[in-house]
């Protein structure tokens, strides 16, 4: 009699375990995992940013799990391009805004027009949102945004320069009066920041890279004036250390060490230095950029996009929508030292004060980053152009002419899309 009873017990136990496992697997299947690629996310500061996003989102969406992946910014372009070509890109990707056009051209991005309502569109500055469009379709949402300001040593320069002439005069004065220190640091290394730095001056001189029809307009009197002034800070005026060695993100180190008295950089310059403006060793302040025929500066943004081969577009967009909501984005900007972008952020107390004021002022004076069809070869052409003049290999006129021809020959103009 024991045997049948034992068999009955064993069978019941088996059914119970199997049923439990089935229930568990079913519950797990209901939870969707969204993979998010966030370049630079392995840096110590970025971990805090990621947690501040993921924890509240997962709490509000228990059926969605967010898994962040990271890659260095230097390798991000190659990795994302390769993943998109292979069709196994993460669901959500954080990219440089300059990559919207090439990735869209590749057919790797999901258009967001059907997901993004008018209210959401209106929450972004119009110019910034436009930079996320490709052939009239919205391919991403802006997620990080920066304007640039002039950092200057308040103990050496009593009033910030308002014009190019004043900038040069102040730089010369500092260089002459303080041996071992240069008046200003600029970027000339083969790096994306070199293009941004130069485009500030190009815009202020009244120039542009592409016109509204997408044709290159670099070779112009304004282009010559801007390139001559920019490279002249090192070549002829000798008020900047050799910029070929440095990109913009290395300038705060020079500033902190007392090697330069001025630099142009986003709000993260303060984070890199780790110094508040009123510090004892290198007291500084920020100011709007000096003007030439125009006042203004480049507005560079990063974007979040959804991969076209995602299996969960709805859930992916829910995370993208959350990331760009007022509360989440304010926290993101504060953690990352970025300029407040979403409507309503600027009124946050954390963005008030003398340090932030020039950055907020520059929002209305900004111009978007150019959108060539492929950024990397375009960046190489521009940085080579600047370096050729810095090194005396070409005059500004020759360099601009050669760069224009290269952009045309390599079919990088926006007007060449689909031709």
């Amino acid at each position: 009699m024991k045997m049948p009873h034992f068999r009955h017990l064993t069978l019941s136990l088996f059914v119970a375990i199997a049923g439990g496992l089935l229930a568990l697997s079913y519950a797990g299947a209901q939870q969707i995992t969204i993979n998010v690629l966030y370049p630079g996310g392995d840096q110590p500061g970025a971990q805090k940013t990621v947690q501040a996003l993921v924890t509240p989102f997962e709490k509000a969406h228990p059926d969605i799990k967010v898994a962040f992946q990271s890659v260095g910014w230097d390798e991000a372009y190659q990795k994302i391009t390769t993943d998109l070509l292979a069709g196994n890109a993460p669901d959500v990707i954080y990219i440089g805004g300059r990559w919207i056009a090439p990735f869209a051209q590749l057919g790797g991005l999901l258009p967001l027009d059907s997901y993004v309502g008018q209210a959401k569109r209106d929450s972004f500055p119009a110019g910034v949102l436009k930079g996320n469009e490709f052939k009239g379709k919205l391919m991403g949402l802006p997620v990080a945004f920066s304007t640039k300001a002039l950092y200057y040593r308040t103990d050496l320069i009593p009033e910030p320069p308002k014009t190019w002439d004043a900038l040069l005069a102040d730089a010369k004065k500092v260089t002459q009066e303080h041996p071992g220190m240069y008046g200003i640091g600029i970027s000339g290394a083969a790096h994306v920041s070199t293009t941004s730095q130069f485009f500030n001056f190009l815009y202020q001189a009244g120039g542009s890279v592409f016109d509204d029809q997408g044709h290159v307009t670099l070779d112009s009197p304004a282009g010559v004036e801007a390139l001559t002034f920019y490279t002249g800070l090192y070549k002829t005026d000798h008020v900047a250390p050799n910029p070929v060695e440095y990109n913009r993100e290395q300038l705060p180190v020079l500033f902190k060490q007392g090697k330069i008295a001025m630099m142009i950089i986003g709000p993260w310059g303060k984070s890199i230095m780790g110094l508040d403006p009123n510090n004892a060793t290198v007291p500084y302040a920020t100011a709007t950029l000096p003007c030439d025929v125009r006042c203004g500066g480049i507005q560079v943004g990063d974007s979040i996009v959804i991969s076209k081969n995602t299996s969960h577009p709805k859930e992916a967009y829910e995370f993208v929508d959350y990331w760009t909501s007022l509360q989440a984005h304010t926290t993101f900007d504060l953690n990352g030292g970025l300029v407040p972008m979403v409507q309503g952020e600027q009124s946050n107390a954390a963005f008030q004060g003398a340090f932030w004021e020039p950055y907020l002022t520059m929002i209305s004076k900004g111009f978007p980053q150019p959108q060539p069809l492929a950024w990397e070869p375009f960046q190489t052409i521009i940085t080579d152009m600047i370096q050729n003049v810095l090194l005396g290999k070409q005059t500004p006129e020759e360099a601009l002419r050669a760069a224009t021809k290269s952009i045309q020959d390599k079919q990088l103009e926006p007007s060449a899309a689909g031709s």
Partner: protein
Amino acid sequence: MSPPIGTEPLARDRTGTMRTRLRRVFDPDASPTVYLIPTLLFLILFLAYPIAKVVAESLYRDVLIRPDLGRSFIGLRNYLDLLRDPAVLRSLRITVLWTLLSVAGKTLVGFAAALLLQHPFRGRRIYLTLLMIPWVTPVVVAAIAWRWVLDGQFGQLNGLLSALGIIHEPLSWLGQQGTAFLATATVDMWVGIPFMAMVLMAGLQSVPNELYEAARIDGAGAGQMFRLITVPVIRPILLVATLLSSVWTFNSFQVIWPLTRGGPAGATTTLVVRTFTTAFGSFDFGRAAALATFVFALLMALSYGYWRLLQQEA
């Protein structure tokens, strides 16, 4: 019961012949081919096939990030474009000069180190250990460390030269074309000297002592012995070492990229750096494949020339 007459002995002969044939097939001396098949398969799969794919790709116009341009067969057009491109020709010149400079430096310094270290002396082991440090350090790590040594504002090199009174203004080693070229070649030499020294030390050990003794008896000086005994005897080893070093240096990427990314203004953009930026910057795979095939052909020609020289030596 015994088998029918005539059958069993015939079957035995057939089996014996088959066994002999099989033995011959698997005999490494008689037919080594069977044992080479796995290696051949490996070489075909992981060497010949990828090379053939790259050569085939070089005949196409294929820009991966421009699907609107399509992928089309263009024959040798990529090669013609390369040969007409001043930037590619400049990269070829830079590569040849950079390789010559670095290999010459490695050979001279490596030879000198080998001569100094070939005989036992007090502290020889310490010097040998120090010599191996560049060899065991990952190349990228070494390049990044050198990047900071050579920095124009903060670099230790400028600090040292300034302290010695040799310079009064900091030099931008990586910010000028000429100095960037020399600096990257010097770092590459630093990485490659240990290999040269070790190979040449082994070569020097193979020179028979009797030759030196006989030369001394004949009144030969150190210089004469070096010129007339040492160099001729180790010449084949020297040729092999410089061939290997030339091929590796020609293909060097991990020294240049962390230091200068091929700059400033293309001053250190060798053919390999240009191939990388064409493939993974512009994603122009057709053109990059043509560049890679061009480098491959150049190095094959170089290796063939060396082989002919070695044959003559033999």
